[in-house]
């Protein structure tokens, strides 16, 4: 790109004979307008409206019947106080924490393992394997949950059938502790492929010279994986971790789909289910808006907190 016509505008001797400078200054804003308009319309405004709603409430008087019996009034922080003191929301958050502690390490661990294995030198059927591992990601979450739900339900599950035939006990996977395993399994099954591709792509981007040098120094494939590959894909690991935390905090469709199958999943199992229940089951959009705002703030704090710590460590390591 050395043609003089592509010289940056504003450099010596305005080649196009452009008019005044002020129009040139407006240009970037003009280009930004569509993005800003879309951002405001479809992002800032709805969020702002939700926050606004979270500070309001509906006040009913008497029997609450008739045209003037309901009015929307300012609630201040009442909805937030209610959300924070709501034990169901807290329990939901704890349940999701347990769930996340299972899902995130298992999923990323498997994704890294698969990526490293696919990246190994002599691997057969790499294309097919990659596709096979990635495929579950293409299955919609609800469909996956239904599929697994049927596999979990003792009386229709082929697993139970086999265990029964072998005379082994059949655990109820939709109750108590196993329920977390059951739910995590759906997420791991669906999410590993995507994360694997992210890590695998990063691995492919590592220059071959690095490996050659390592090999010349006598590193075994295992050592290459542990000492070179993993550190070099650390940024991708951070990224996938970041996505996984957000996805975990927002878990909704899997427990919602399993809910009708078991008594163990309540309508408020995860924080987002509680928001949904309050907004669309109980018709209290104001309380739901406050909870949604809190969840958004918690997500931001957690995910960016993680990003900052991760970045700081990467920088420290780079500085060494």
């Amino acid at each position: 790109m050395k043609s003089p016509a592509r010289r940056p505008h504003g450099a010596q001797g305005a080649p196009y004979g452009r008019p005044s400078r002020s129009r040139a200054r407006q240009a970037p804003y003009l280009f930004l307008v569509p993005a800003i308009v879309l951002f405001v319309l479809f992002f800032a405004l709805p969020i702002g409206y939700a926050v606004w709603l979270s500070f309001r409430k509906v006040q009913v008087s008497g029997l609450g019947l008739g045209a003037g019996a309901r009015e929307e009034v300012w609630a201040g922080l009442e909805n937030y106080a209610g959300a924070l003191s709501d034990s169901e929301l807290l329990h939901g958050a704890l349940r999701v924490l347990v769930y996340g502690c299972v899902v995130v390490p298992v999923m990323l661990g498997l994704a890294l393992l698969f990526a490293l294995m696919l990246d190994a030198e002599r691997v057969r059927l790499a294309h097919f394997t990659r596709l096979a591992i990635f495929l579950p990601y293409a299955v919609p979450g609800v469909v996956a949950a239904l599929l697994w739900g049927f596999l979990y339900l003792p009386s229709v599950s082929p697993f139970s059938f086999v265990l029964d035939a072998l005379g082994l006990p059949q655990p109820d996977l939709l109750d108590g502790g196993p329920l977390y395993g059951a739910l995590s399994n759906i997420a791991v099954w669906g999410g590993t492929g995507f994360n694997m591709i992210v890590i695998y792509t990063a691995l492919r981007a590592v220059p071959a010279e690095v490996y050659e040098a390592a090999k010349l120094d006598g590193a075994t494939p295992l050592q290459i994986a542990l000492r070179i590959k993993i550190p070099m894909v650390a940024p991708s690991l951070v990224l996938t971790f970041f996505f996984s935390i957000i996805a975990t905090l927002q878990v909704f469709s899997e427990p919602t789909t399993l809910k009708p199958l078991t008594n163990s999943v309540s309508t408020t199992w995860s924080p987002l289910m509680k928001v949904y229940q309050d907004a669309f089951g109980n018709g209290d959009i104001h309380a739901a808006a406050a909870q949604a705002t809190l969840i958004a703030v918690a997500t931001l704090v957690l995910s960016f907190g993680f990003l900052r710590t991760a970045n700081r460590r990467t920088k420290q390591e780079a500085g060494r």
Partner: protein
Amino acid sequence: MPYTKRRRLVSSAVAVALGATALAACGSSSDDDGAASGPVTLTYWSWAPGMDKVVDLWNKGPGKERQITVTVKKQASGDTLVTKILTAHKAGKAPDLVQAEYQALPTLVSNDALADISGEVGDAKKEFADGVWQQTTLGTDAVYAVPQDIGPMMFFYREDLFQKYGLTVPTTWDEFADTARKLKKAAPDKDLTTFSANDSGLFAGLAQQAGAQWWTTSGDKWKVGINDAATKKVASFWGGLVKEGAIDNQPMYTPAWNKALDTGQQIAWVSAVWAPGTLTTAAPATKGKWAMAPLPQWTKGENRTGSWGGSSTAVTTDSKHKDAAATFAAWLNTDARALNALAKESGIYPASTAAQTSGAFATPPEFFANQPDFYTKAAEIAETTAPSAWGPNVNVAYTTFKNAFGAAAKNKSDFTAALDAMQEDTVADLKKQGFGVAE
């Protein structure tokens, strides 16, 4: 989704004796009448399957003459539709007509979403049982909806298996418990039925049969009686059966439940008049092996039932063509051809008394071909429906039911404690919203 949910019906009287004055203010403004002047297009939110075909009859027949065209927009059923209507109403954009469950009417009326159509459909009153009609008036002079379908509760059982295990059809709840125990003894891996916590309507219907009055008013205050003596009796009865293991505790409408019914692992179901439709899909292998009987009673010789499900057609206050909409609502739920189509296409059990034994209901449902008098009996049972009492936050009570009773059924713990939680949550919600609540 549970097949039955779309036609959850409730036939009973809303015992909320609301002051007529409180309601006079709402929805009685004289809307402009579009019926006479030029063509009118109405939108109708409904979840009934095949409703578009029924509406086609109108659009090609009486609707064409009157230049009133109705468009159906298929909706999800239940509580989510109520929220959707209320949200649309807030924006002034609710459809002209909506399908609404009876227990949702107080909520919709209290949000000023439903128009008073007493002037337009008052004549239709004679087509329905008093208790059913009363639910659409909320005990006032106004009329907020036209009843569409009802769901009187009944007892369904596997005739062949009852014979095999030497069981007799229980006429009282005590006999019901004995039957469950007797079956457990004869065949330990079988269950008479299950207590399911995933459809609150079933429990509400059972409580209604026992004489419960969950929401009543005194003056300008609501009184919540969810943990009243009658409901407590029902809760501890079922809780006891679950605890001793006489019946199952797994939810209904799951693949496991379908299988249990289909293979005869569960041999009875406390349900409502729409059960044949559900059984057809859930347990196809058992066709012709079931029979229907009245619900067991709390006192021998009594004759009462509750209701599970049921819905009505209402006109919203946002409709610009109240007259046209009300005319359609009345036609849909009283015209013989419309009701016949509703029975055929949507599989509903009509609220209109004349339709309950004629047309599609002159012969028994295919699944119950062995019981020729199915619908005659059903109509008799429908007449014995106890009055019901709905309030403005049924959804909150129902949510707590699902969670608290779900947990209690799972842990086989005290059902009355779950009932208390339901009462507390419901009262707390009313208070939080600012309703007057009598202790």
